[in-house]
C-alpha cells in the first residue's frame, strides 16, 4: 500500500504505476459533468487547480443549522462521461490526478502521459467507506449547479484508490477490455 500526501508533487505522481493501491491524504475537489462542461465552455475554475486532484463525485451533503456541511455519502461517479474534457483540464489547469470509477479512454490516457497525471479508481458504490475518509468540508464553489454537481473542497485522510491509468501510457481498463473481448469471441 502506497501513500500520497498533500501537497501533491509531480514526482510522486510519476512514481505511481497501474495496479498500485494508494491511500490519499489531503485536499480533493469534486467536479463532475456540469463542472467539466462549464470549464470546457470557457469559464475559468473558481479555484486554482494546479497540482490538485479532481474527484468525480456528487456527494450527499446536508447543510447543518449553523451553516456547516456534513457529507452523508460520497462515492465516485462514472468517469467516462468526462472523456471529451478531462485532457483539457490537465493541459490548461495543471491538475495532477483524477479520481473516479469505470476508467477513462484514450484521450485521457494521452493527457495523463502528456501532462504527468494519473487516473485513480475509487470503489464505486462504496459511499460510506469513502465518506468516512472525509475529515472536513472546507468550501463549496459553483453551488448554482446543484449540490451533486457543485465543486466541494474536501480534506480526506487515507482515501483508498487503485491506480488504473498511469502517466506512462498504461491503462488497466484497456488491458482488461482487450482480454475480455478476446475471451468473448471464443465463448460465443
Amino acid at each position, binding site marked *: 500500500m502506497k501513500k500520497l500526501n498533500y501537497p501533491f508533487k509531480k514526482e510522486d505522481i510519476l512514481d505511481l504505476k497501474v495496479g498500485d493501491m494508494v491511500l490519499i491524504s489531503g485536499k480533493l475537489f469534486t467536479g463532475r459533468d456540469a463542472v467539466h462542461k462549464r470549464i470546457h465552455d470557457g469559464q475559468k475554475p473558481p479555484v486554482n487547480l494546479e497540482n490538485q486532484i479532481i474527484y468525480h463525485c456528487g456527494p450527499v451533503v446536508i447543510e447543518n443549522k449553523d451553516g456547516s456541511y456534513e457529507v452523508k455519502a460520497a462515492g465516485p461517479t462514472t468517469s467516462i462521461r468526462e472523456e471529451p474534457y478531462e485532457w483539457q483540464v490537465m493541459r490548461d489547469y495543471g491538475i495532477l490526478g483524477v479520481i473516479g*470509477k*469505470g476508467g477513462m479512454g484514450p484521450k485521457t490516457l494521452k493527457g495523463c502521459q502528456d501532462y504527468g497525471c494519473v487516473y485513480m479508481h475509487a470503489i464505486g*458504490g462504496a*459511499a*460510506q*467507506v469513502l465518506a468516512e475518509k472525509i475529515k472536513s468540508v472546507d468550501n463549496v464553489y459553483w453551488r448554482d449547479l*446543484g*449540490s*451533486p454537481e457543485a465543486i466541494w473542497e474536501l480534506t480526506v485522510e487515507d482515501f483508498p484508490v487503485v491506480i488504473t491509468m498511469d502517466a506512462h501510457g498504461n491503462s488497466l481498463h484497456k488491458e482488461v477490455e482487450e482480454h475480455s473481448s478476446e475471451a468473448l469471441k471464443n465463448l460465443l
Partner: protein
Amino acid sequence: MAKKKAVKKKTAKKTVKKTTKKQTKKLSKTPVKASPDKELQSSIIELIRVTSTVIPDDVQKVILKALAKEEKNTTAEYAMNIIQANIKLAKMKSQPLCQDTGTIIFYVNHPVGFNQGHFTKICQKAVVAATKVGYLRQNSVDSLTGKNETMNIGPGHPSIHFHEHKKKTVEIRLMLKGGGCENVGAQYSLPNSELGAGRDLDGVRKVILDAVNKAQGKGCGPGVLGVCIGGDRGAGYINSKEQLFRKLDDTNDNKDLAKLEKDIVQTSNKLGIGPMGFGGKTTLLGCKVGVLNRLPASFYVSISYMCWAYRRQGVTLKNDNKINKWLY
C-alpha cells in the same frame, strides 16, 4: 358594525383556544393515534430508509460468495473487501449505501377501490422528507434548465407503477437504481449481423454477453442483469427492470430461460472483467430473464444492469398503514 365584528372575532379566538386545550388534555391521557395518512407516510419513509441503507439478504449472500472466490492480495479482492465494509457501515450508520440514490421506482399492488391519486401525494411527501434527512440525494434534474432543486419531485420522479390485485392488502416495492448502472443498460434489435445474433435463444445469449463486455466495470460490477426478450422498446425496458424484483436465488419457471440465466452468469464470469473492471473472477452476480410477446417485425432484447449496491425492498401494510412484513 365594526365593534360587533371585533367582538365576534374575539369569541371565535376564545373558542379555538378552549378546544385546543381540551384536545391536548385528551391526548395526554390516551396514547397518540396517528392518522392513516401519517402512518402511510412514515411507512414509506421507513421503506426508503431501509432500501437506501441496507442490502437485501439474498444479495448479501451472493456478494459474500463472490468475495470468497477472488484471489488474495489482488485489486479484485481489495474491491470486494471495501464493498463488504461499505455494506456494514451503511447499515450501522443508517446512511445511503451509494451517494447516487438513483431513480426512485415504486411498484404498488393494491386492492380494488384503492385511491392512487391520494397515495401518490403521500408518497411524494415521504420522498421529500427522506431527501431532507439524507436517505436520498437531491437527484432530480430538470432536463431543459439543468436545475436540481425539487427534492426528487418532477415529471417522472418518483416513478410509481400501480397494479390492482385480488388480495385485500397493499404491497409496496421500491427500487433505487443508480445512474451509473442505468447508463450501461442496452437494447438490441435482432437479427444483429455484427454479432451474428439471430432471432433465437442463441442470438439472445450473444447480445446479452456483448452488453456485459461493453459494460466492463462502468456499471459498478459485479452486477445483476434484468433482461426482457420481446415487447416493444418501452415495455421491454420496463419488464427488464421488473426482473430485478425477483430474488437472486429463485429459479425461472421456464426451463429454457432458467438454463439461459445460469449460462449467462457462468460465461460472463469467464470474461475476466471482475469487480469494478479490475480483472477477476466475478463479473456478474446474477441474471434474470423475462419474456413478452412481440410483433412479427420486432425482436428486442432489453437489458438493465443493476450495480452490486442492489437497492430494492418491499413491505406489506397492515390496515392502519403500519408496516406488516418486509418482502426481501
